[in-house]
């Protein structure tokens, strides 16, 4: 029996399999090493980094919802300097392609972060998270305005030779226009989706549960929205898509790939089943074997035929 080829091509970036972990759900790659060797993953995306350290939001930062969860971590992170000095050397030891997720509040922030990423380390790509409020333009997220989104990608592109992933927010009227904008701006790939904005209220205190009032909805609840956006964007752009949003099982991963994702990212599911990424790799392989595909990439976009 010939082994199924799991090799995944994301533009210039080649991964040994299409399953990675999503930013903010996998720490800096070490926490889940107690469960399995992270080098079995296609790639690891680390927690979002900002130029300066951030203490993030007050607790509670998480709240459960039907088949989902809200988080309002508020981009707590050690900042660029500590990331490079302390975390990157440790990431190097995981022997896994690392995707660094960067967030900023101005174009300069993005430029600074991009230019600071070494091009000869374990860093395989930079994921540009444009869901942060654009302080200069009055707080509206970069990711909701096509022109700003394109600009962020352009400035990031200028400052690094590393492959660039644009990570889009689903909280928009028209995801396709945004996807085209970041493609124009120079994104090599598009990550879909970040969290949906949501909130919950505590019946006892009669106040919002989250310290930050609102938070991002993730987990299985958002899967149909994410699959839809992957499907729409696949029709409209040429760059490969990394699909995420509620992926918990290999069936979910297949669904995203049929919709048009070249790779998938596992987020919230790690919290529920730490072995989810491995089970997805196995399940994808078995699906391809039983359906008669020689390579997992053959199923990408099949739902569009």
């Amino acid at each position, binding site marked *: 029996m010939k082994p199924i080829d799991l090799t995944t091509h994301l533009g210039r970036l080649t991964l040994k399999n299409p399953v990675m972990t999503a930013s903010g759900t996998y720490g800096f790659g070490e926490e889940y090493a107690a469960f399995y060797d992270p080098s079995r993953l296609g790639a690891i995306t680390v927690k979002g980094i900002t130029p300066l350290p951030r203490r993030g939001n007050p607790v509670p930062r*998480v709240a459960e919802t039907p088949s*989902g969860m809200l988080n309002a971590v508020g981009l*707590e992170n050690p900042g660029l300097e500590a990331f490079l000095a302390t975390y990157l050397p440790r990431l190097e030891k995981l022997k896994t392609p690392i995707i660094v997720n960067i967030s900023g509040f101005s174009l300069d922030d993005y430029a600074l972060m991009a230019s600071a990423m070494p091009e000869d380390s374990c860093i395989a790509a930079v994921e540009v998270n444009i869901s942060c409020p654009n302080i200069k333009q009055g707080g509206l997220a970069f990711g909701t305005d096509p022109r700003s989104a394109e600009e962020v990608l352009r400035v990031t592109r200028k400052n690094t030779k590393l492959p660039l992933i644009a990570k889009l927010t689903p909280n928009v009227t028209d995801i396709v226009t945004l996807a085209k904008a970041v493609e124009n701006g120079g994104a090599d790939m598009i990550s879909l989706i970040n969290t949906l904005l949501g909130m919950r209220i505590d019946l006892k205190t009669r106040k919002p549960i989250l310290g930050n009032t609102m938070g991002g909805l993730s987990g299985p609840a958002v899967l149909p929205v994410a699959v839809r956006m992957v499907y729409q964007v696949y029709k409209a752009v040429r760059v490969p898509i990394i699909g995420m949003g509620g992926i918990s099982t290999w069936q979910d991963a297949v669904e995203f790939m049929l919709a048009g994702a070249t790779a998938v990212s596992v987020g919230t599911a790690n919290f*529920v089943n730490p072995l989810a990424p491995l089970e997805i790799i196995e399940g994808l392989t078995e699906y391809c074997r039983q359906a008669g595909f020689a390579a997992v990439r053959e199923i990408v976009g099949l739902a569009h035929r």
Partner: protein
Amino acid sequence: MLHREIVIENQRIGADVYRLVLKGAVAATARPGQFVHLQVGTTTDPLLRRPISIAGIDQPKGEITLYYRVVGRGTAKLTGVRAGETLSVIGPVGTGFTVPAVGELLLVAGGIGLFPLFTLIEAVDRSAVRVKVLWGGENRTFIQEVGGETLFKMDVDYAVATMDGSMGHAGLVTDLLQAALEDRAARSLAHRTAEGQTAGTAPSDWGTGALTERPEGRAAFTVAACGPKGMLQAVAESCGQMGVPVEVSLEERMACGVGACLGCVCLVRTTDGTLARRRVCKDGPVFDGREVVWDEAD
């Protein structure tokens, strides 16, 4: 760290509290103050695992005992699990209590905060450490139902306080603590004065050094506490004022339970005075009470 454990017992012991005994790999490495992160269902709702403290460790049998109170959908679902079924468990997780080698250990518990202290009681060498439990609860029914199945069988000194005065001290468990601290201070003062030291500096003197770094020969007096945040803050402040080392076990809403999501943080003042985040699930749930910053706004 991810195990399927067999349910040996899942039994209501009173006052909406259940005892859950699990057999599997967790017992072998569990330590006092650690917890498990339990999956309560098999579908995507409820989605997240639930953190429950380890309240008993039986290494020979490979069993751990948990006690949980039914408060919401997850714990309600857990009550339906039957002996013989298996549960998915992440654990043991977290950094637990310091187990003192000598001296006196005062345990302060609020309500179901009692449970995580059991493993500490079991772990200390009771011939070298004098243990006393101060426990506060709503009322007699709660204390008797829950205590009757647990604490009162443990052959350990205890005193209880109830809010409605239906059993023990009428009021807060922190009143009992305050009295104990003052009593201890008076005794120590007498002791030290006898040794020729000046009384005034004694209490603050106690406060230096970690719990395990007690100078030999002088019996250490330490406090460990678990319960609602307000109570823990009061305990930490009382102990702080008296210079008594105190460890507190915090609770926070958790997603991953293993330090990956930054969902469950608290704020601490580090030794150099700066504020820093700690993850309750991984860096805790047990923290040095003097370190914890109780109000984010501070």
